[in-house]
C-alpha cells in the first residue's frame, strides 16, 4: 500500500484501508471459529522443537488471543470508517500506519516467544508514535507524541533488559521453555527481571506511577487513533503481564501468591484513585477520557491480581466491554469536535442542544462506564466480586464501584453541560484551553453517517454480547487453560489438545447489577453537585471541589518529559526493591 501511496487519491486510499482491515477481520473470525475446538500452536518456518530446546518462534493461537485480535481488527475497522476524509492525513500516510498498528497488536496477542513479544511491542509503539503526531499544524501534538515516545521507549528497553536477564539464566526465548527452566528459582536476579518486565509493561498499561504519558498522548492524537489507544493498545500491556505471570513466572510465585497479590492490589487501587480523581477534574474531553482509561486499567489490574482463571476471565470480559464503550465515547467526542469545533468543556457549553442522537450515545457511554447492567462491563465486575469474595477481599468490588462512579460522573457532567446546557459556565483550566484544530474540512458540518454509525456499532456491541452469553463459557474454559502453566507447556511441546473448566459466576450478577445501578445513581448525584454548584450550599459542592483538581496530582502531570522519567524511575526502583525483598523465600 505504501508504494502506491503517491498515486492514490484520498477516496481510494481510504477504501483500500477499510478493505484490508475488513479482510483482516474476516480472517481473524475464521481463525477464531477454527480454534474453538482447542488451542493450536503454530511454528514459524517449520521449526519444531529440537528435543527440549525450542529453536523457532511460535504463535499460540487460543480463542483468547484470537479473540483479542478480532477485537483489534474490529476497532481498527470502525476507526478507519470514522476517518473517511479526515483532515490532515494527507499524502495517505495514515492508512498504512493504521494497518501496521493493527498487525502489531494482533501479533502481540498471539505470540508465545518473549523476544517476538518485544519486537511487536516496539512495532506497536513506533506506529503509535507516528500516528499520535499526525496533526503537525499545532505544537501540542508533537510534544505529546514526544513524551509518549520517550516513556514508551524506556519501557521497551526495560523489557529488553528483563529478557536479557532471563535469557542469561535459562538460555531460552520461548515463554514456555523459560517457565520450565526457571522452575521455582527465587534469587534476586529472577525477581529483578520480573520487576523490570512488569514495570516495562505497566508503562504501556498506564498504571500509576507510569501513567503520565497517556493523557498527553490522548489529548493530541486524532480521534480514531485515540479509539485504538484506549481500546486495546493500553490493555495489551496487562495481557503481557498476564502471560508472563501465568506462563513464565508461574512456579516462581507459587509460594508467594499473597505478597504478589498485595503489590498488584496496591498499585491497582492507586491507579483507580488517581485516574478517577484526575478524570473528574479534567475539562478537556479527550484528556478526561484518557484518565478514565487509566482508572479502568486500575480496575483491570485488580481483576488480574486476584489471580487464577476467574480473575483473568473477569478481566477479559471487562476489557472487551471497556474497549467498545470507550471507543464509542471517543468517536462521539470526535463527532462533537467535527460538529461544534471545540473540545473543551467551557467552549462546548450548551452548544450540543440540538444533537439528540449524539447525546443518546454519550449518555449510554456513561452508563457503560459505571458498569451498569446492559453492558458486559457488568459481567466482568461480577467476576471480580466473586473472585474477591473467594479471597476474602470483597472491598475490591467497592473500589471498582468507586472508580466507575467517578469516571461516569465526569462524562455525565460534561454531557449535562454540553447537551442540556444546565448550570452556569463550567470551571475550566489551562489544559482545556488548548483547543484543537478541527479534524474535518469546515464546509460541511452535518454529521455524516460514517461518523455516527461506528460509534453506534461500538456502543451496541457490549450490549449484544451481554444479551447473548454463549461466548462466556468459551471464555471461562479458555481462561482456565491460559492460566495454567502446565497446560501451556503441554500445548507447546506436545501440541496436544487441552481443555479447561471454570464454573460460571452467575450468582454474583444480581449484586453487580445493583452495584452498577448504585454507581450510576451516585454518579448522577456527583455530576449534579458540580453542575448546579451555584444553587447549593458550600458544604454540598463536592463536585465543584473535586473538579478544580487536587493540586499535587496536577503538579505531577506537568508535561515535562524529565518529570515523567523521574516518576518512572521512582516506580521502577520501588517495585524492584519490593520484589527483591518481599518475594525472597
Amino acid at each position, binding site marked *: 500500500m505504501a508504494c502506491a501511496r503517491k498515486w492514490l487519491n484520498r477516496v481510494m486510499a481510504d477504501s483500500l484501508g477499510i478493505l484490508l482491515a475488513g479482510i483482516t477481520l474476516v480472517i481473524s473470525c475464521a481463525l477464531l471459529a477454527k480454534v474453538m475446538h482447542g488451542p493450536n500452536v503454530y511454528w514459524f518456518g517449520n521449526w519444531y522443537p529440537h528435543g527440549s530446546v525450542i529453536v523457532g518462534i511460535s504463535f499460540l493461537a487460543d480463542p483468547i488471543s484470537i479473540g483479542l485480535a478480532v477485537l483489534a481488527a474490529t476497532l481498527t475497522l470502525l476507526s478507519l470508517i470514522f476517518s473517511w476524509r479526515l483532515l490532515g492525513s494527507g499524502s495517505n500516510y495514515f492508512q498504512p500506519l493504521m494497518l501496521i498498528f493493527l498487525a502489531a497488536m494482533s501479533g502481540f496477542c498471539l505470540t508465545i516467544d518473549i523476544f517476538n513479544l518485544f519486537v511487536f511491542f516496539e512495532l506497536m509503539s513506533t506506529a503509535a508514535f507516528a500516528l499520535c503526531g499526525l496533526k*503537525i499544524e499545532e505544537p501540542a501534538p508533537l510534544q505529546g507524541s514526544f513524551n509518549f515516545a520517550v516513556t514508551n521507549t524506556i519501557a521497551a528497553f526495560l523489557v529488553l*533488559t528483563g529478557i536479557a536477564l532471563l*535469557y542469561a539464566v535459562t538460555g531460552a526465548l520461548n515463554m514456555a521453555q523459560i517457565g520450565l527452566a526457571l522452575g521455582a528459582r527465587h534469587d534476586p536476579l529472577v525477581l529483578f527481571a520480573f520487576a523490570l518486565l512488569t514495570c516495562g509493561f505497566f508503562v504501556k498499561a498506564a498504571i500509576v506511577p507510569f501513567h503520565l504519558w497517556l493523557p*498527553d498522548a490522548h489529548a493530541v492524537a486524532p480521534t480514531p487513533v485515540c479509539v485504538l489507544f484506549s481500546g486495546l493498545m493500553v490493555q495489551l500491556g496487562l495481557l503481557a503481564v498476564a502471560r508472563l505471570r501465568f506462563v513464565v513466572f508461574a512456579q516462581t510465585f507459587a509460594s508467594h501468591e499473597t505478597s504478589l497479590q498485595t503489590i498488584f492490589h496496591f498499585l491497582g487501587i492507586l491507579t483507580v484513585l488517581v485516574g478517577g480523581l484526575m478524570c473528574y477534574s479534567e475539562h478537556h474531553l479527550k484528556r478526561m477520557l484518557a484518565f478514565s482509561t487509566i482508572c479502568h486499567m486500575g480496575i483491570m489490574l485488580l481483576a488480574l491480581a486476584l489471580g487464577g482463571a476467574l480473575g483473568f476471565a473477569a478481566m477479559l470480559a471487562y476489557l472487551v466491554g471497556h474497549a467498545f464503550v470507550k471507543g464509542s465515547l471517543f468517536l462521539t467526542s470526535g463527532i462533537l469536535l467535527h460538529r461544534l469545533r471545540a473540545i473543551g468543556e467551557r467552549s462546548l457549553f450548551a452548544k450540543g442542544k440540538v444533537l439528540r442522537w449524539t447525546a443518546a450515545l454519550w449518555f449510554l457511554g456513561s452508563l457503560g462506564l459505571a458498569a451498569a447492567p446492559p453492558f458486559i462491563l457488568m459481567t466482568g465486575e461480577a467476576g471480580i466480586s466473586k473472585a474477591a469474595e473467594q479471597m476474602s477481599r470483597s472491598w475490591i468490588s467497592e473500589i471498582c464501584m468507586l472508580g466507575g462512579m467517578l469516571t461516569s460522573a465526569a462524562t455525565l457532567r460534561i454531557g449535562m453541560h454540553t447537551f442540556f446546557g444546565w448550570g452556569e459556565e463550567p470551571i475550566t483550566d489551562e489544559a482545556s484551553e488548548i483547543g484543537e484544530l478541527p479534524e474535518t474540512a469546515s464546509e460541511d458540518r452535518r454529521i455524516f453517517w460514517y461518523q455516527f454509525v461506528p460509534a453506534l456499532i461500538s456502543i451496541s456491541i457490549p450490549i449484544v454480547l451481554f444479551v447473548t452469553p454463549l461466548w462466556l463459557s468459551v471464555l471461562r474454559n479458555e481462561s482456565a487453560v491460559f492460566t495454567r502453566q502446565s497446560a501451556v507447556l503441554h500445548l507447546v511441546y506436545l501440541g496436544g489438545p487441552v481443555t479447561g473448566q471454570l464454573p460460571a459466576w452467575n450468582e454474583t450478577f444480581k449484586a453487580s447489577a445493583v452495584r452498577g445501578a448504585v454507581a450510576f445513581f451516585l454518579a448522577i448525584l456527583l455530576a449534579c453537585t458540580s453542575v448546579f454548584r451555584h444553587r447549593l450550599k458550600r458544604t454540598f459542592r463536592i463536585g465543584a471541589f473535586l473538579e478544580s483538581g487536587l493540586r499535587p496530582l496536577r503538579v505531577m*502531570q506537568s508535561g515535562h518529559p*524529565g518529570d515523567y522519567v523521574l516518576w518512572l524511575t521512582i516506580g521502577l526502583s520501588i517495585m524492584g526493591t519490593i520484589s527483591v525483598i518481599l518475594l525472597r523465600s
Partner: protein
Amino acid sequence: MPDILHLAPYYVAAWLFFCGLYGLVSSRHLVHSVICLAILQSSTYILLLGIGYRIGGAAPIFADIDPGKLTVDPIVQALMLTDVVVEAVVVALLLAMVVKAHEKSGTVSPDELRTLRG
C-alpha cells in the same frame, strides 16, 4: 576483586542505564533527550552481548572452523544486529518530532514547551 572483573560488563551496562536515565531527567534540550535514549539502548546491547560471550570461543562463522567447536552465542548477536539499525531509524523519528516542535514553537527546551501542563 576477581568477582567484580567477572561481572564487569554487566556493571557497565547498569551504569550506562543509570546515566541515560539521569540525562533524560536533567535534560534541557530535546535533542539531548533523544541521544540519552540512544545511551539506554547501548546499555542493553552491552548486557546482551556480555551474556552471550564465551571465553576462548570463536565467532560463530563456520566457513573455516568445524561446527562442533566452541563458539560464542549467535543468538544474542542476531537479536542485537537488527536492533541497531532499527533503533537508528527510530531515533530519526524522534528527532523529526523535535525538528517539527522547534519549527512550531521556536524552542527546543522542554521547560518552555509546556502546553500540556496539568
